[in-house]
């Protein structure tokens, strides 16, 4: 259990990788950056960590997280926003659109007249989180570094390309 808290998570900077994608309108390649997560902490780990951090049992923490998720779901999907102090707010967003035969997806589309808009135009409901100003500013000020020339970057590129690490 002690190992959970001893793990170093404070990296102080965010890693990114650069990739190129064809621009649909011009056909030329454009360069884009994508943040690379250092590690993925699964729900078992987070539950264990949270229980230890708040000094409650893991079972209690699991029940409390379930109740928290129920509460967020209830409020957000009934049209309210949930604002957590010093963190941000959970809100819903909707997408009203039309069926695109070419991409086989619903794409956002508006109407010329307000009177033509119907609730049935809405094709998707999404739950979003928006950080508070303080955390957004903190994230914006975080140092960035390109991982492309590092071993970590190579591993990330391989995993994106579907290349499995070979067993020596």
């Amino acid at each position, binding site marked *: 259990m002690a190992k959970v808290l001893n793990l170093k998570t404070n*990296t102080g900077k965010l890693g990114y990788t650069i990739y190129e994608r064809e621009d649909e309108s011009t056909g030329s390649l454009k360069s884009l950056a994508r943040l690379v997560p250092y590690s993925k902490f699964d729900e078992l780990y987070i539950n264990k960590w949270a229980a230890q951090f708040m000094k409650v049992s893991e079972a209690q923490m699991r029940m409390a997280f379930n109740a928290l998720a129920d509460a967020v*779901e209830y409020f957000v999907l009934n049209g309210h926003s949930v*604002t957590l102090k010093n963190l941000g707010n959970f809100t819903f967003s909707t997408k009203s659109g039309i069926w695109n035969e070419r991409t086989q997806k619903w794409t956002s589309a508006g109407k010329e007249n307000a009177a033509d808009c119907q609730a049935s135009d809405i094709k998707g409901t999404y739950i979003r989180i928006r950080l508070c100003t303080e955390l957004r500013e903190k994230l914006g000020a975080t140092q960035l570094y390109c991982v492309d020339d590092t071993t970590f970057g190579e591993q990330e590129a391989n995993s994106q390309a579907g290349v499995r690490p070979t067993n020596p």
Partner: protein
Amino acid sequence: MATIRTGVVERPIPGGGKKYFATGVHSHRIDDDGLIDYMLQNSQVGRTSAVAAVEAFKAAFTTFLMNGHTMQVPALGTFSLTCGTDTKKITKIAPQKPWDTDEKKEQAKEWRKQVQEAIDKINVRFTPARRMRNAAKSVSFQQITLDED
């Protein structure tokens, strides 16, 4: 089944001009206390555990997510960081690989510097847990006239 009220908003569209869109309307803002009260009334958890879950969730954000990790919060879903790239700021193109000459290395350095400067809007991506995603799919909508509010 959950119900969201909808209204109509005017938004700019790519390429210029404006169009009207049907959209959900937010009703009330629920704070920490409102959330905890709901948890106490609708589950078996006590106040200590409810407060612990909210505080642990906030602490996990700053410990894991803000340091570039992805975290999966039990029952809620997965949180990760994303960024946007302002491609208009990138005028240079990536040199053809391999970057084995000094000239190519210099070009690559300049290109990477431009891409880094074009990174903007670091955001949090939230992928709700499966149960929450399914609940979001079954939301019904009730049309209202915004002027009435």
